[in-house]
């Protein structure tokens, strides 16, 4: 039986081995390349996706563990008004330099604002701390998160 995954509102039959970490299925088989691989060790946040509305890293856990759950990748974040608001705030504040961390941060911000519409600074930094940015875009990201929460 082939593995079925629900991603961004669509159902995909997957031919990769079900033990393959989700990120490789997304990027290599389904060509959804917006999620990035930064470490493969759940240490950097580049590969974050939404799973039933919560942030999960996709670089270690096998694809089969996601069966029957609703996966949203950066490609599908804009399907919700909240996601679009977060994306617009990142553009407004130029909250990226190279952009390699951006997909993961937008996913994490969307999940945060979904569960807490007006997070305080501590809640924001806790939510974003699993995510690295080596270009130092942090101050702009924090402003973008505040803006997305306000609007």
């Amino acid at each position, binding site marked *: 039986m082939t593995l079925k995954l629900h991603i961004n509102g669509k159902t995909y039959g997957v031919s990769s081995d079900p033990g393959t970490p989700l990120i490789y299925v997304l990027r290599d088989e389904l060509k959804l390349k917006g999620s990035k691989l930064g470490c493969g060790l759940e*240490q950097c946040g580049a590969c974050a996706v939404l799973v039933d509305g919560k942030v999960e890293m996709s670089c270690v856990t096998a694809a089969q563990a996601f069966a029957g759950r609703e996966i949203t990748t950066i490609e599908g974040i804009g399907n919700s008004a909240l996601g679009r608001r977060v994306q617009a705030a990142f553009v407004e504040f130029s909250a*990226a330099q190279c952009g390699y961390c*951006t*997909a993961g941060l*937008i996913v994490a911000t969307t999940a945060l604002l979904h569960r807490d519409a007006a997070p305080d600074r501590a809640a924001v930094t806790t939510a*974003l701390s699993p995510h690295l940015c080596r270009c130092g875009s942090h*101050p702009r990201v924090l402003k973008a998160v505040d803006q997305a929460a306000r609007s």
Partner: protein
Amino acid sequence: MSIDAYPLIADWITTRDGRLLVHTGKVDIGQRISTALTEIAHEELTIPPDQIDIAPVRTSRAPDEGMTSGSNSIEQSGHAVRCAAATLRARLIALAVSRLGGAPKDWRISGGVLRVPGSNRQISVLNLIDEVPADTEIDRHAPFLTRPPGTVAKPAMRGLSEMVLGRFTFVHDLEAPGMLHARTIHPPHARARLDRIELKTTDRSRVEGLHIIRDGSFLAIAGSQEWPLVQASVQLAKACCWDPGGGVPETDVFTQLVTANASRFPVIDGVPQNSGVPDALPKPDMHARYERPYQMHGALAPSAAMAHWDGETLKIHCHSQGIYPLRTSIADSLGLRHGQVDITHVPGSGCYGHNGADDAAFEAALISIALPDTPILLKWSREDEHSNAPYAPAMVIDLAAKLADGKIAAFSAEAYSDTHGARPRPGPNRAGPARLLANRLRADAIGPVPPQPNMGRHTGIHRNLDPIYAFPKKRLVKNLVTGGPHRTSAMRCLGAAANIFALESFLDELARGQGADPIAFRKAYLTDPRDRAVLDELQRKTMLLPDLPETGGRGIAYAQYKNQMTRVGICVDIDTDDRANIYLTRANIVADAGRVIDTEGLSAQLEGGFIQAASWALYEAVTWDRDGILSRDWDSYPVIRFGNIPTIDVTILNRPEDKSVGAGEASPGPAIAAIANAVFDATGIRMRRMPFTPDAIMQKAFAD
């Protein structure tokens, strides 16, 4: 200078599909050069930014501007594009006159259209450009267009709207028909050599159907699906038996960075001299030694490259900062003509110098030559990047001063480190090939060539060794100490990060010793009004800051990058706890980068530089033992995270009449020093070695 080698308008500006195409040899590594060039072309030609493209940077087409480094993209490429666009505008007006009459002064340009006001005579700039003869030379004196503020559209950052949608293409995302994924299996450390591979039967099934490429100790594996390939590469790595070749020397590197091991050069006015080193200051009133460990680029994305060899041409896509020197070095390594290697730049993640990009490009090339007619996408793993990319060298800076009436009468600075410049550039003794990692491993190995001291002004070890301050007597010495345990090369700021950390900490020690105000203390040695203006503005901002908590501290620092580029003053506020954790609460940055083109980009560079430097200052140090590098991931090499990001306030003093200078490397040096000075202010503990971790602060507290 870029225009000298590429003197034609068409070298820099052409059209394609009815859109303006700007050519540059500088690659966008997150410093937003493509945004700035769009803005420049827009300023001079008034074509809306959304009708302007930046051509891919490719060795077979783009102007060869050498390396993208040293914060000089704007000065070089930006200037060339501005002159080309200004010349082009004058030519277009002349064409409009000959076609539709009137005098040049009658024609106005706006919104990408030339028109004579009050008439129906008008013509689109984009339509007219192709009629300018292809061999038209740039007039360097063509006047620039000045328009009232507010009439120039500010282009959005290039690529940003694609990034937030997940549609921006990095080299890791490339695809080609028939493409194979690849991994390299690197030795545990630089001295190890591959003795044999012992694959167990169970492992064999994993690697079956995959391609294993071996050339001496260079080992790679390729296959069509990425995850099975990754698993196989892990099995293959386990099956390798390495001869450790003596292992990695474990001695404390700071004890090696001493005069006895060094090639020494006095530095005068920022330039090293081939002459005797003057004697040390006799009986200095103050003496201190500052240290920086090996630190890594730690790009968020491990290096990657795509290569395709068709028997005649080797096409490479990679994120190297220097695709032209890399092309030559790769061609020379493989015995190809330079024209047979064609490299296109594709973005990687943020790049802060010579990371693994060039090595990965060459490795992909080697694999593609073993597997002709097959596009190869090589990706390094996180471990590969952490343990194989060149590091910023460990540094020691010895400072001393003689005082007279509390003022510095004589100053001495000696900087020690291994090379900051080991990029693969062509040079004597096959220097280019020798600096590509895989060439050291191949059966026909090319050993490392000893680095030559860089004798340029404010380059390498002695960048910002010469203080900007007018001390009556200065004694400056560059000490190149080669043969350290790790491969080192260029990382953001080169020697300037540690040299400014040292000097600005030292001045703080002196000022505090006298109970003097740190800004006034510095100003006493500065006469240039632009230096003073930055410090005055910093003072003004500092006065408005809220009081510090009992456990808090405040530090300032100042520097002008290379003594000739962007000036930056920084004030940092921190808080501490009883476990010696440092919390960055606030940073005020004041900068003068000459004429400002892309304000947002400039602020982003200054902030990004601050944050990266804060990470160096508080967290980063490469560790190793005999068997190899221990800093192999983000747990064993911690870096700054969102939990310790201060509120940053950036003030830019615009100097419209001065030339634009880059700022990507201007803030890190003063950032480190301002943090060290704030730590002292809060705790009374003077941290002279980075990083200022809680453990290091506690140890220092007990030692003092």
